[in-house]
């Protein structure tokens, strides 16, 4: 449904930033595909290129069966875009906005009005239909924006960081709307810097860094790309970290990572999980080391990201719990 081959894009002027550098993507129909990456990785540029907003320098892109360069009009008939900033007319009311976009989608006036009312209802905006969009809360505006994207039931929906800056409740509403869309057969390309969002919504994730895809797979695959689960131990006295590391190395058979600030040690699990854990606990107690916490952990997507790009993600959601 979305195919990108070796896309390259260099912005003119300034420092001639290379935004896309051999970007490839192949998204089948009917799924949410996540583009995960830090600010400036090229996610937004990729979305702008694929949605015909931005010309690219070389490569080939096809969206919903139409070539982005040669048939941009066809692409535009089949896609919708909801960007980081609510793309609505601030002066018009919510209803007027939807009617306007319906008319520009070449619906007849009566059909445009009917569709507007349906969407207002569906996104819980009927009560605010007559108010100017500039008086909407952030969440309402984003819902209106999403509603505007759905006037013509797009085959492909681009969601560029759809929940950045939203409170948890509005974020959940947006997520619910996206899930419903996909259930109805729309293909969604979602960009996000929020690991949780990608984990929650996307069936497949491409990790973007410096204008190219550095890894791709299901959220679980990306996590296991880091390797095995690990045994994590937190001890009480930081002066015993060295001793604890020696004990763990003997029991687990690997060299532990040490985080002195957290007094935490991590060692990959290579043998039986439960046996290793009990053996480690016993050995630590015998050595007279007080264990504050012990457990087995799957690597987080954040760690996977760090592993793949050498950097932490720029942001993790504050309200991630």
């Amino acid at each position: 449904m979305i195919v990108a081959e070796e896309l390259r894009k260099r912005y003119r002027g300034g420092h001639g930033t290379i935004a896309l550098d051999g970007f490839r993507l192949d998204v089948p129909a009917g799924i949410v595909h996540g583009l995960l990456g830090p600010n400036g990785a090229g996610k937004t540029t990729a979305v702008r290129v694929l949605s015909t907003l931005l010309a690219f320098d070389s490569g080939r892109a096809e969206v919903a069966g139409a070539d982005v360069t040669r048939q941009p009009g066809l692409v535009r008939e089949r896609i919708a875009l909801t960007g980081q900033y609510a793309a609505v007319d601030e002066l018009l009311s919510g209803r007027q906005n939807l009617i306007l976009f319906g008319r520009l989608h070449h619906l007849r006036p009566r059909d445009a009005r009917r569709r507007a009312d349906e969407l207002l209802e569906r996104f819980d905006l009927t009560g605010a239909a007559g108010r100017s969009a500039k008086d909407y809360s952030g969440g309402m505006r984003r819902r209106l924006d999403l509603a505007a994207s759905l006037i013509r039931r797009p085959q492909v929906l681009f969601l560029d960081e759809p929940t950045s800056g939203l409170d948890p409740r509005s974020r959940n509403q947006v997520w619910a709307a996206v899930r419903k869309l996909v259930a109805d057969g729309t293909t969604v390309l979602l960009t996000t810097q929020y690991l949780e969002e990608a984990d929650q919504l996307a069936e497949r994730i491409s990790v973007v860094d410096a204008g190219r895809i550095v890894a791709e797979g299901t959220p679980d695959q990306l996590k296991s790309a880091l390797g095995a689960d690990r045994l994590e131990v937190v001890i009480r006295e930081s002066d015993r970290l060295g001793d604890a590391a020696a004990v763990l190395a003997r029991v687990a058979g690997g060299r532990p990572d040490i985080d002195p600030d957290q007094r935490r040690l991590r060692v990959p699990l290579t043998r039986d999980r439960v046996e290793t854990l009990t053996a480690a606990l016993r050995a630590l107690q015998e050595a007279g080391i007080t264990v504050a916490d012990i457990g087995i952990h799957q690597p987080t997507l954040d760690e996977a990201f760090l592993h793949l790009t050498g950097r932490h993600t720029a942001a993790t959601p504050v309200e991630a719990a």
Partner: protein
Amino acid sequence: MTTSPTAAPATTAPATTASHDPGNGGLRRAVSDGWVMAGRYLRHVVRAPEEIVIYFTLPIMFVLVFGYVFGSGMSVPGGGGYREFLIPGVFVMTMLYGIGATATGIAVDTGRGVIDRFRSMPMARSALISGRVTADLARALLEIAVLVVCGLLIGWRWHLGLGNVLAALGLLLLLRLALSCAGVALGLAAPNPDTVATIVFPLAFPLSAVSNVFVAPEMMPGWLGTVSEWNPISATTTALRELFGNPGIGSDSWPAEHALLLAVAWPVALIVIFGPVSVRLYRRLGQ
């Protein structure tokens, strides 16, 4: 859209011949989309009337201040009442200041996310500009109507028949069309809507001051009078005075003698310059 999730990519969309693309959808769609966009801009006027009120207040203030405060000390070459002399110029000045509304409107649109929605929709790309220009002409009609009433109240009249009045109206709308093109270019070039006002006022004020709107060029120092006579604003003002039969066409200089010609030539020149500039700047949004 009812493709199965397992369908191969890029083969699920309705078949289309490889080279066929609806593109901007032809002239008919361009006209209807432009019309819808014009309606959008006019709804803005209704929903946020304070903006147009500001654009009304300025010319009316000028009429009152110059017509009653300074006007008593002004003399009109060739005789005649100062207020009859003033009103045609105020019509023109109002058209000139409209450039600020156009540029701000376009800068607001292109500076926000809404431009991305318009550009990702299957609408004619020209509609944003053609809609704005159409709405500007409708606004101009409203502004002119208010000024006509205002003028009639303080004693201004037209003296030469309806044909001339319509010709004058045509010249005003032609000028507004040209300034609208310039305003679109300015709005597209401006980095943000706030800078528009700081560009427009220093540009528009001298253009209206160094013209024959308030003072006849014959009364100005030599070179300033020449600049004033060749000013596009003066050309339309003089043409209007001729068409309305209002006083103040005393000069026998070339631009004053050929005011009607210049009142057409100047706007056409502005359109020829700023039309393509606007289109170029608009296309640059996708680079």
